[in-house]
């Protein structure tokens, strides 16, 4: 038996983040409490930046690594790089300590009972939650592995590595802790259930192909005749698991509750990065492994895409909470990405990569702005409280308006170019009816985005309305970067579009 070779150079970005996460756990065990916060933040930042540098250095690599279990190719590197950039910005929002008196957005100890004496003592001592950083690093590592997985087992492990820390992180809000616990529990129960369905599907696909590798499953599509029942059940069940993670209808029910209950920095991180990772994995699974039976899964995704766009856009109209509204908007966006996914070619992959990058940046920025608008009860997320915000703090309201316009797909923002490219890819792929539904859904969606902008700029300020807190310089830089990227990618999308186009080739 010969020893397998591992491509350490190509796997280095993943190993860096995984290693830093393990070191983070050891820091929790050995570093004195007072120094922990600084050490954890610095470690997380260093690891993510080092990993990003390694990803950039690997640009153009096309390697099947780890005996075929992982693929480092264009889409994988593009998504890993984007996830790393978004996580680095998220660290700034996680470590923000100027908004809450005496702490950050997280409960001092997640295990303390809400409203108990223990909690009060911890708050008085200004105890900080530091375990959130290693958890986040594990989640990031899982997200980086997910779109690079070339094997059903690795894909499942990556899914769990990214999901389990997120379930915990959702339950750590400093304010409205019961809501946060509820969000964590709902996300965990539904997420664990969908992971089980995904695993069930993998078992069927393995039963069909006799292999876990995507390339061999792809070959089996032409050689294994008469076992289509196993294959189709497998494809359907695996789709359920992945569609749950991207928040597509009818597996979207968790999204508004979890986005609302989770601490807003976590919501920002989760909304942006999970969607990137899950769509990356979905595109690879459906194009590389199941590409040969696309006529079987395309009708299913057609139906899901239409339902997702319509439900996301229409239900968002009735929302009165800004975080819930953004959650439904993220559902609608998942639908727009699915229209391109149905097309199943290189143009579609490029469009999806570009769309995900622009959507991720705008989402991160929008949720970060939500953390700034506060009243005595913490974040003021009710829409009525945002009335007249544009008169009180035009810069914050203007930035938020920019992100909303990008979500709506107004020209001169990144969202327009993104939407244009996914719809163009869908038309090329023969999914014109989907695009018609998409355009109608965008029109509905534009209405509720513009409604918020009108509310902020043209209504009278609410009595005893919220104030806009002044964050630390890092958060300001993070939000400014997001706004600049949203504007810049709308005006000069060429370079990123070219990069996505070059990156959109899957290695089998």
């Amino acid at each position: 038996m010969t020893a397998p070779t591992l491509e350490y150079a190509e796997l280095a970005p993943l190993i860096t983040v995984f290693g830093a996460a393990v070191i983070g756990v050891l820091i929790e065990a050995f570093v004195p409490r007072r120094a922990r916060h600084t050490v954890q933040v610095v470690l997380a930042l260093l690891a993510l930046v080092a990993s990003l540098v390694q990803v950039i250095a690997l640009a153009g690599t096309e390697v099947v690594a780890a005996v075929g279990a992982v693929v480092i190719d264009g889409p994988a590197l593009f998504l890993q790089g984007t996830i790393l950039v978004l996580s680095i910005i998220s660290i700034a929002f996680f470590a923000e300590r100027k908004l809450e008196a005496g702490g950050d957005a997280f409960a001092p100890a997640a295990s303390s009972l809400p409203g108990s004496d223990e909690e009060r003592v911890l708050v008085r001592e200004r105890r900080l939650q530091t375990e959130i950083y290693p958890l986040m690093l594990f989640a990031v590592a899982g997200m980086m592995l997910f779109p690079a997985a070339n094997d059903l087992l690795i894909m499942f492990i990556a899914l769990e590595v990214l999901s389990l820390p997120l379930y915990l992180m959702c339950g750590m809000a400093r304010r409205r802790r019961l809501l946060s616990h509820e969000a964590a529990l709902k996300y965990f129960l539904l997420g664990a259930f969908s992971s089980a369905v995904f695993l069930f599907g993998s078992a069927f696909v393995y039963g069909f192909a006799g292999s876990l590798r995507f390339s061999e499953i792809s070959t089996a599509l032409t050689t294994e005749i008469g076992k289509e029942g196993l294959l189709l059940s497998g494809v359907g069940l695996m789709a359920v698991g992945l569609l749950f993670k991207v928040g597509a209808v009818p597996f979207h029910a968790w999204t508004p509750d979890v986005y609302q209950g989770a601490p807003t920095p976590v919501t920002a991180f989760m909304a942006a990065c999970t969607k990137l990772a899950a769509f990356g994995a979905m595109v690879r699974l459906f194009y590389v492994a199941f590409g040969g039976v696309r006529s079987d899964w395309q009708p299913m995704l057609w139906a899901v895409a239409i339902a997702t766009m319509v439900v996301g856009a229409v239900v968002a109209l009735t929302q009165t909470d800004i975080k819930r509204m953004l959650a439904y908007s993220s559902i609608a966006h998942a639908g727009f990405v699915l229209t391109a996914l149905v097309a199943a070619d290189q143009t579609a992959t490029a469009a999806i990569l570009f769309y995900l990058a622009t959507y991720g940046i705008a989402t991160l920025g929008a949720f970060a702005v939500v953390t700034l608008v506060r009243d005595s009860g913490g974040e003021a997320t009710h829409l009525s409280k945002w009335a007249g915000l544009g008169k009180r703090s035009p810069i914050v309201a203007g930035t938020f308006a920019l992100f909303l316009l990008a979500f709506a797909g107004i020209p001169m923002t990144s969202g327009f170019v993104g939407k244009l490219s996914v719809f163009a890819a869908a038309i090329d792929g023969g999914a014109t009816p989907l695009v018609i539904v998409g355009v109608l859904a965008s029109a509905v969606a534009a209405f509720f985005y513009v409604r918020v902008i009108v509310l902020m700029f043209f209504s009278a300020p609410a009595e005893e309305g919220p104030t806009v807190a002044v964050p630390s310089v890092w958060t300001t830089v993070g939000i400014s970067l997001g706004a600049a990227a949203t504007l810049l990618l709308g005006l000069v999308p060429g370079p990123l579009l070219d990069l996505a186009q070059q990156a959109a080739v899957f290695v089998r």
Partner: protein
Amino acid sequence: MSLYAPVIGLIIIAALFAVGSVVVSTVVGPKRYNRARLDSYECGVEPTPQPVGGGRFPIKYYLTAMTFIIFDIEIIFLYPWAVRFDQLGVFGFLAMVTFIVLISVPFVYEWRRGGLDWD
């Protein structure tokens, strides 16, 4: 389409069975309510009352369970390696050492954070 017919058939039968059983049992079943009937079902055990002050319960069992899971995972990987360790060679040995080092990290964490103290 004929490929999907059995699946659709099964879905219809399953739905009919699920909805049917609920409906039939509410219509046909006797309706005699007493204390035992209205109690929550606890696998035949008397349901324990909620502790005073919001439902806290001793956390020791959950820590023991988590420790068990770590050992469990370790054993699951150690057994197959032990059976074939001579054929897996140096690579297998080093991989197993790395694995054991990594899996000791949660133990170290648990020990340092007081998870092993039985107060």
